[in-house]
Each structure stands twice: as structure tokens, then as C-alpha cells.
């Protein structure tokens, strides 16, 4: 998972360089005293825990450290495009100082903060300061060449150039020029390096885990919503369809019972009607079952289910299957409905006259590719069936990729992890 939301080092305009230098300088000026202060306070506070004072002060100090780290996280995201997700364990609001202190000290994120402070006051300081230095130091070289060298009658070292007269001052200016040239390339990168260093120490895979939890929460919500909607649909279909027809059959049978002796001809008529209703109820139930869990899928698995699906399409469809064994039922079902939806899309919108489906399972991934020779231009977006497919796959950590240039062909690839 990459956490660079945007690449802040790619800009090499003069303004970008200046901005990076100013930001770096500001960072350096804040980070050194801030980090030293936080570090010392933390050390003292933790050291005072045995005599009791630390228990009261430590939560405040560590909260301050967190605020300091959080501010840097915000800057890293805004200035460097580097996301450092915080991963602190939540503390109960009404916990006593003792619980707070030890709760915080048990949190690995706290120790990462404390470890980060000395790194920030040394390497962090240098990497933040260097952009400004790279930009300002050449100015000194130019100033020397412009006559500043006269102020130092005993000679002055500019970089590795000993400035003793106008000639060597020009040398200093030349070095300054070289440095300015380097700054042009290095300044934004150095600031980026600073933030990446911050992330390396301050960030943790805990952050990725937090991100993962967020994604899982979202997909779970989607799954719950979808299945609730599905249940409502099934209930409605049963209620309006098969159930109503069976009630009608029952009523007809009751009438038939009454009519049997009085009016056999009418009874016979009703029997025919009741039989028709029962057939219709069966047809509806069958359609419903196909929508919930297609029988072929249950009987033969994904490969044959997709083959059977292809047989029903009005477009010539070639299916190639390479699936050793069967995947878990929910995965098969998700893949089946995803493929089904994509095929329906292809038939409805692509105007294709040939479709190829490729099912393939390797290295713990179930991959389904649907390609058509239609007119292309399919996008994943609000309201398109593909967004629904993506959500359906998301529940299984699956992904959907669409390649559909206008003019075709369209290729939809779906991947679902399966054990």
C-alpha cells in the first residue's frame, strides 16, 4: 500500500524551491526546540513515575508529545504529500491518572513517538534545514564576490574555497552557482526525505492496519446494506409472487370442493386454473432461486455455472475455465454474480457480437476476465452497474479493473482472493 497521496517533490519551479526552503526552515526552527523540549520533559516525567509525581504529569506530557507528532503528521500530508496515519490506542475518558499513564506507556505508538523525538532533533533537523541552507549559502557566495570578502582580511573559507581576494571570491561565487544548481534539484526532495524519515520512524504498520480496518468497516457496511436489500427483495418477490399464487390455488381448491357435486363442469375449469397457478408459482420460485443461488452453481461450481450462463446469452460467448477444485461458496457466488452482471452489461450496452470469458485461479487469486469486441467506453461510476460489481467484490477484498477505450474493445478483469 502506498501512502504518498501526491508527489510533492516533482515540482522544480523557482517558487516551489523557495517554498520548500521556507517550509524546511520553519520546520527546522520548530522541530529542534520542540523535539528537545518534548524529549526532555518525557524523560523527566517518566523518570519521576516511581516517586509518584510522574504518574500525574506523564499523561499531560505524552499528550503534548502526541499533539506535536500530530502537527507533524498534518504538515507531512499538506507539504510533502506523505500520509502518516496515527495509530494511538484509545483511552477511556474517565480513566484515573494511573490508568492513563500506564495505558499510554503500554501503547507501542507512544514509544514510537519517544523514539522519533531524538531522530527528529538530529536527522530530522538536518534534512529540514538543508533546503534552506542550499538556497541561502549560495547567496553568501555571491555576496563575497560582490565585495563582502573585504570584511575578512585574514581569509575566509567558503565551502572548500579559501577566499583571500576578488579572484577567489569569484571562485566562491562559482561554487555558489553550482550549489544553487544542485538546490534546484535537491531542495524539494530533501523536504520529501524529511517527511519520509518522519514516516519511517513515526508511522507503523499499525497505521496500515488502521487503514485496513477502515476499509473493512466500509465494505462490511456495504455488505450488510446489500444483503438487507436483497432480503427485502426476496421477501417482496415471495409475497407478491409465489405466495399470492399459492393462496389463489388454495382458494380455488376450496371453491372446487364446494362445486364438485353441484357444478362439475365449473369445478373442472377451476382445477385447470389452479394447476396453471401452481405452475406459475413454481416458475416464479425457480427464477427467485436462480437469483439467490443458481442451481448449476450449487451443483457444478463456478466454471460450469458460467458456461451455463454463456449458453443463455444472445451473444456468442466463449468460456475458458482453469479452476483447480472449488472455491468457497460465498466466493464462487460473488464471482458468479459479478461475471453475470458484467456479461449482462456487455450484452446490453457494448453492442458486441463476441464475448470471451476467462476464469482462472492461481496463487490464491480467482481471476475472471470478460472481454467483448463492442464499442467500449464503459466506466466505473455512480449509477453504472460496474460500481455495484465493485462493491460486491469489495466485500471479498476483490478488485475490479476496466479497460474500455471508446471504440472498444472492453476488458473487465475481476480478482478475488481465495484460499
Amino acid at each position: 500500500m502506498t501512502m504518498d497521496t501526491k508527489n510533492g517533490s516533482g515540482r522544480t519551479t523557482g517558487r516551489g524551491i523557495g517554498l520548500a526552503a521556507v517550509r524546511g526552515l520553519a520546520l527546522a526552527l520548530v522541530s529542534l526546540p520542540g523535539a528537545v523540549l518534548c524529549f526532555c520533559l518525557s524523560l523527566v516525567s517518566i523518570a519521576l513515575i516511581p516517586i509518584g509525581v510522574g504518574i500525574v504529569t506523564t499523561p499531560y506530557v505524552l499528550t503534548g508529545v502526541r499533539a506535536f507528532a500530530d502537527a507533524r503528521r498534518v504538515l507531512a500530508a499538506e507539504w510533502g504529500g506523505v500520509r502518516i496515519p496515527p495509530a494511538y490506542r484509545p483511552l477511556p475518558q474517565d480513566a484515573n491518572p494511573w490508568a492513563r499513564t500506564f495505558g499510554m506507556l503500554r501503547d507501542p505508538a507512544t514509544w514510537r513517538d519517544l523514539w522519533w523525538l531524538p531522530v527528529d532533533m538530529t536527522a530530522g533537523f538536518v534534512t529540514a534545514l538543508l533546503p534552506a541552507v542550499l538556497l541561502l549559502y549560495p547567496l553568501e557566495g555571491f555576496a563575497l564576490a560582490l565585495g563582502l570578502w573585504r570584511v575578512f582580511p585574514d581569509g575566509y573559507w567558503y565551502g572548500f574555497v579559501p577566499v583571500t581576494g576578488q579572484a577567489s571570491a569569484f571562485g566562491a561565487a562559482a561554487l555558489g552557482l553550482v550549489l544553487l544548481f544542485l538546490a534546484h534539484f535537491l531542495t524539494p526532495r530533501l523536504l520529501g526525505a524529511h517527511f519520509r524519515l518522519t514516516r519511517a520512524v513515526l508511522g507503523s504498520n499499525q497505521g496500515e492496519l488502521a487503514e485496513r480496518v477502515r476499509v473493512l468497516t466500509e465494505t462490511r457496511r456495504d455488505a450488510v446494506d446489500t444483503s438487507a436489500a436483497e432480503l427485502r427483495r426476496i421477501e417482496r418477490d415471495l409475497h407478491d409472487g409465489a405466495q399470492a399464487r399459492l393462496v389463489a390455488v388454495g382458494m380455488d381448491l376450496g371453491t372446487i370442493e364446494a362445486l364438485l357435486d353441484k357444478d362439475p363442469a365449473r369445478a373442472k375449469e377451476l382445477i385447470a386454473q389452479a394447476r396453471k397457478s401452481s405452475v406459475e408459482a413454481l416458475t416464479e420460485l425457480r427464477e427467485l432461486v436462480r437469483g439467490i443461488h443458481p442451481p448449476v452453481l450449487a451443483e457444478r461450481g463456478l466454471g460450469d455455472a458460467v458456461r451455463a450462463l454463456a449458453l443463455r446469452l444472445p451473444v456468442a460467448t466463449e468460456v475458458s475455465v482453469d479452476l483447480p477444485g472449488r472455491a468457497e461458496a460465498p466466493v464462487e457466488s460473488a464471482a458468479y454474480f459479478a461475471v453475470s452482471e458484467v456479461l449482462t452489461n456487455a450484452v446490453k450496452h457494448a453492442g458486441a457480437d463476441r464475448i470471451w470469458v476467462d476464469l482462472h485461479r492461481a496463487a490464491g487469486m480467482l481471476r475472471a476476465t470478460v472481454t467483448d469486441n463492442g464499442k467500449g467506453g464503459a466506466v466505473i461510476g455512480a449509477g453504472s452497474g460496474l460500481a455495484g460489481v465493485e462493491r460486491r467484490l469489495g466485500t471479498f477484498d476483490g478488485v475490479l479493473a476496466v479497460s474500455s477505450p471508446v471504440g472498444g474493445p472492453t476488458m473487465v478483469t475481476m480478482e478475488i482472493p481465495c484460499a
Partner: protein
Amino acid sequence: MRVVLAEDLFLLRDGLVRLLQAHDFEIAAAVETGPELAAALAELDPDVAVVDVRLPPTHTDEGLQCALEARRKRPGLPVLVLSQHVEQLYARELLADGSGGVGYLLKDRVFDAEQFVDAVRRVAAGGTAMDPQVIQQLLARRSGDDPPLARLTPREREVLELMAQGRSNAAIAGKLVVTERAIAKHTANIFAKLGLEVSDDDNRRVLAVLAYLDHGR
């Protein structure tokens, strides 16, 4: 005529037994699981087997697999497969060996006892009995992109559907309430338009139609 019957739902099995007995079939065995069916088919050598697709213990397509296996061991063994749903894929597998004597019907067709018993007799005699749903799917799928099928008149399509289900000219004539000669004329037209050889054998006729429908996929 001796029948082996395989159906796991007691009510339906019981009903089928009574229905078939009422029409002078002899029930050689009425079983409820796949292994029992395999044993019965091997030992009893029935005239026809009526088999549910989904059977215990796997509750998948055990019945169909047993039937296919039995037909491999004894080519031409008449098998009528019943299912809660019809799937072209299964119809194709049943027809694959081309030796006839197969049927594939929705379970609801049992509601029309006469038609169902007629289907069992046809299959036992080496004919075919394909569910109208299978045929309709086949025709619907093929007619769109297929000029020869598109050239058929609606009446000829009707006849073709019934023919593909495995019915004889006489049966088709009865169903459409026309003379047998009219049907003979229609079939001749259909064969001409589809470029099929005329044959007197009902079974070969259906297989030819299905083979044609299958052709060029």
C-alpha cells in the same frame, strides 16, 4: 415395462410410483440416493430410468452423473432426467453420445400425467424428450444471429420446437390440430431450409436438429 426411479423427496417419489404404476409400468426399484441408483441400474437392467438430477449424498448433480455413467457402461440405456430447473448445459451432456433414449424434463411436467407418461414411453423406446424450455432457449439464442432459422415461418418454428422436443409427426399434428400430411410438409420445408437430410427415424431427426442448433458455437 420395468422402471428404476430415483428421487430423494419422499412425496414426489411416492407420487411418481403411483403415477407410473397407474399407467402399467413395473417399478423395479424406487431409490433415494446416488449410490443406490448406481447399484440399481447395474443390477436390475431396467427398460427405463427416471432420475432426479439432485440426489443425496452430495445434493449436487449426483443423479445426472449416475445416469451418464450408466449410459457409458450400457450405451443407449434409456434415461429420463427430471429436474427442478432445466439447463442447456445438462441437456447437451445427455445428448452428447448421440445414441438417443434420453429425456430431460422439468419436474412440473409431471403435473400433466398423460404428457409425462408419454415422455417416459418415448424415451424407453429410444426416442428423446427434451423440455420445451430447453428447446425455447436454444431457438431463442440461435434465431437472432442465424439466417437459416430466421427464414422459418412462425408455424414452421412451432413445428421445429415440437420436433426438437422429440415428438413424432402424428403427435405434432395432434398438438397443433392439423393433419399429419400438413406436418410432413412443414418438416420437409424446415429440413430444406436448414439443410438437413430427411429421415424417418424420430430420434435421429431430433438429434439432427439439436446437432444443427449446437453447430457453430
